[in-house]
């Protein structure tokens, strides 16, 4: 009886860190959302035309963003996976760049591209000799959809490339030797193999578009989404009801993604890979190369526009009129809100980034370490850390605001609450990088340490931490870059004297100071890309989790 009691204590202690983490960062804030619900209001909202329209519009926008992202990605993914040529790695890196650049930068690029005096209208006016803007889609759902396609097409390419790469060349050869034509081979081999990858890419793009926050705020105009409405109504009780609806929907999406990921994992395991590289010398190769180059150039255009705007006082036909650092210099004298200067904002952002990165890495290492000796804890930890993947950030931010901003800790107005919010969304990323590295250590090495008399702490310090050191550093850089470019939590919790770089970018865009916003975005891009590149050198897993 005593032994059974002792067993329960040991079990409780084993799960305690995970329970504390999950409780503090997710469960308690969500419970606060539930506690602040007005049930009559919630029931009324479920049939309310406003909420139905909002949900429908969000889903429609996500669906419209998904279809072109996946369809346009298919030929490029096929090309990158099957064809070999000198600059293929460079092409892949350039194509994927927009996805690794902060969403705010791509969105500002959209404004510079799609605005009335934007690059597209300048080109069309010149081509059509028209004196007035030809397209007028900015500040509408169309602009949100276009921005999402720009941002998520590289994600679809990455996933589909894995799918095409997993197709065994022997199967294609076998189908063709058996007399199957191209179409039959494609259906028998490619389609069967690709369906889970197509579904995964579609589901991920849909989920990310569904919970997108900064893009609808900046280019949506009067078009709103559930995620934005939670923020807009955050001071009213209705926001809790909206958050609950959004949480339920996004949890469903997260679970679907997780289920599909397991299926993908099984497929990946069962497929024997043998690939042959095709040459781009034939007409199909040339056509695919041309298509991929064109899409890459279009994809890079918004990022180029932001960078061109940042290094020039003005642009002429989307080329810098002259190269100058005047925008960066002007940042130092600009008022970034309530007397805050650029240096104040930069220092606040960097300080929050460092604290978030250190805390996220420490929490991740501790959680993964606790789970490393017990398969059951490891699986539960992995599952819990995967759930926030596409969960509504606005809903979580609302919970954190209600709970730690005003309820339990009264932290509203303090930088600590931004740190808490960002840790909640960044730990799932850093933990995956660390877990991937930890798994590679191998059970035998740990068993050897145990057998030779080492305590868990001795093994951690002497063997495990030194072995995962590159992944720890990669996680730190990843967490730092994620914090620097994070907008949802920062926007929820920013006050007149607490502002981060992305919040300042949005303020400057609202003030139509696109030159200063571009300079600020340029700085964020440089910090984020530098951190991500260093991170990818240190760990293969780092860029995959983004």
């Amino acid at each position, binding site marked *: 009886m005593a032994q059974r009691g002792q067993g329960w204590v040991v079990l409780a202690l084993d799960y305690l860190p995970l329970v504390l983490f999950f409780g503090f960062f997710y469960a308690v804030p969500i419970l606060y959302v539930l506690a602040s619900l007005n049930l009559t209001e919630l029931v009324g909202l479920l049939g309310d035309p406003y909420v139905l329209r909002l949900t429908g519009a969000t889903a429609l926008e996500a669906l419209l963003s998904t279809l072109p992202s996946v369809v346009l990605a298919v030929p490029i993914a096929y090309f990158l996976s099957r064809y070999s040529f000198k600059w293929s790695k460079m092409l892949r890196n350039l194509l994927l760049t927009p996805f690794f650049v902060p969403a705010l930068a791509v969105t500002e690029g959209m404004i510079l591209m799609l605005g009335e005096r934007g690059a597209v209208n300048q080109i069309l006016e010149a081509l059509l000799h028209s004196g007035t803007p030809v397209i007028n889609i900015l500040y509408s759902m169309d602009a949100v959809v276009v921005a999402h396609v720009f941002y998520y097409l590289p994600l679809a390419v990455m996933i589909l490339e894995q799918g095409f790469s997993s197709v065994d060349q022997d199967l294609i050869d076998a189908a063709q030797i058996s007399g199957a034509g191209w179409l039959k081979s494609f259906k028998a081999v490619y389609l069967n193999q690709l369906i889970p990858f197509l579904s995964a890419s579609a589901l991920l793009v849909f989920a990310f578009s569904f919970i997108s926050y900064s893009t609808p705020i900046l280019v949506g105009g009067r078009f709103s989404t559930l995620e934005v409405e939670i923020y807009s109504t955050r001071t009213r009780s209705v926001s809790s009801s909206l958050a609950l609806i959004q949480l339920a929907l996004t949890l469903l999406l997260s679970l679907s993604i997780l289920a599909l990921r397991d299926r993908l994992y099984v497929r990946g395991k069962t497929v024997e890979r043998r690939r042959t590289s095709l040459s781009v010398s034939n007409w199909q190769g040339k056509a695919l190369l041309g298509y991929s180059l064109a899409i890459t150039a279009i994809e890079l255009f918004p990022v180029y526009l932001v960078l061109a705007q940042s290094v020039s006082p003005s642009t002429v036909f989307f080329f810098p009129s002259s190269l100058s650092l005047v925008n960066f210099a002007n940042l130092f004298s600009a008022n970034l809100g309530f007397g805050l200067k650029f240096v104040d904002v930069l220092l606040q952002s960097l300080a929050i980034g460092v604290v978030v990165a250190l805390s996220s890495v420490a929490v991740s290492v501790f959680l993964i370490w606790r789970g490393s000796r017990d398969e059951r804890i490891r699986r539960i930890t992995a599952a819990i850390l995967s759930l926030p993947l596409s969960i509504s950030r606005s809903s979580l931010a609302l919970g954190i605001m209600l709970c730690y901003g005003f309820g339990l800790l009264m932290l509203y107005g303090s930088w600590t609450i931004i740190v808490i919010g960002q840790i909640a969304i960044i730990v799932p990323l850093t933990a995956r990088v660390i877990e991937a590295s930890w798994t590679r250590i191998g059970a*035998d*090495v740990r*068993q050897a*340490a145990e*057998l*030779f*008399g080492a305590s868990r702490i001795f093994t951690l310090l002497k*063997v495990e931490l030194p072995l995962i050191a590159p992944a720890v550093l990669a996680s730190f850089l990843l967490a730092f870059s994620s914090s620097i470019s994070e907008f949802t939590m920062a926007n929820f919790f920013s006050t007149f004297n607490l502002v981060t770089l992305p919040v300042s970018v949005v303020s400057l865009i609202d003030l139509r100071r696109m030159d200063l916003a571009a300079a600020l975005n340029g700085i964020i891009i440089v910090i984020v890309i530098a951190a991500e590149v260093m991170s990818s050198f240190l760990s293969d897993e780092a860029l995959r989790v983004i």
Partner: protein
Amino acid sequence: MTMELELRDVSKAYDGTAAVTNVSFRIPSGKVMALLGPSGCGKTTTLKVIAGLISPDSGSVLFDGQDVTRVPSASRNIGMVFQNLALFPNLTVEENVAFPLEARGRDRSSIDLRVAEVVRLVELQGLEKRYPHQLSGGQQQRVAIARAISADAGLVLLDEPLASLDPALKSEVSSVIRNVQRELNVTTLYVTHDQTEAVLISDFLAVMFVGRLDAVGGTRELYESPPTEESARFLGATNVIQCQIESVAEHEVLVSVEGATLNVARPRWWSPGRGAAKLQFRPDDSYVTDSTKGMVRGRLTNLMYGGSRLVARVSSDLGEIECTGSSSTQYDFLSGMLGKEVGVSIDPWKMVLF
């Protein structure tokens, strides 16, 4: 420090499937036992139960008569060479060897002395500052052996230590293992699926099939007169012929094969009986001769030149028989007899009766 190991009725199942059932054996202090069996027979599970890395469902593990079944792995004072070595990749040779000593909190000067001593014993001098990835396969194996013995373990466990090495390295590393064992007089359990390795290195043999021990005994005794047909086959006896038992004496048994009678050794565990029985013998203990000689007659169906030793197959009424012989003296002679009637001579004292 060396100790006696005893297993009593150890059983372990995974998800309801038995991995090890009622395994019992004893290794006297300072001796080497080889635990031999095919892949998946439960050898590594047995080894991990002894190491304390997994708990048995029932049965006990005793070190010098003391029950250590529930004692944590770290407190059992054992060393182990893992199948994939499990060297710490971030530590140098000397840091790997020092690991068990540091983990047990020994002082620096005694650690340095012991590391130098063990490095000399496994002949790794000059490589102390290298990392595992800078060493050859054989050198890595020596580091794993050095780490296993550095903390004066009373028992050393070796899990298929030569499995990944080429034949030349196997011979070199097995010689190191035997020398180190003799020098330290440490009790050793050597797990392998290779009967040649097992016989070469051990004082005692335990043969295991599908989670159960099939035979346990002195290596030479078990090799020369295995108690079961399965063990005999696993230890290299591939030929089986039918015979009739005519009479049984204290040390001999008179049997008849194809009308001819002969005396074979009576196995220690064989109980007297009459009627049909089986005789097993190794290819090395038989040779092909002309049809007027030999115990068994048949047709020479196949002849393979195998370098120094040839392999011949004879099809007889008693079944297929495989024989070996010296290529230099017999190959030309036997080439002319391929497809013809031949005789097979078998050394009766090397035949095993079942």
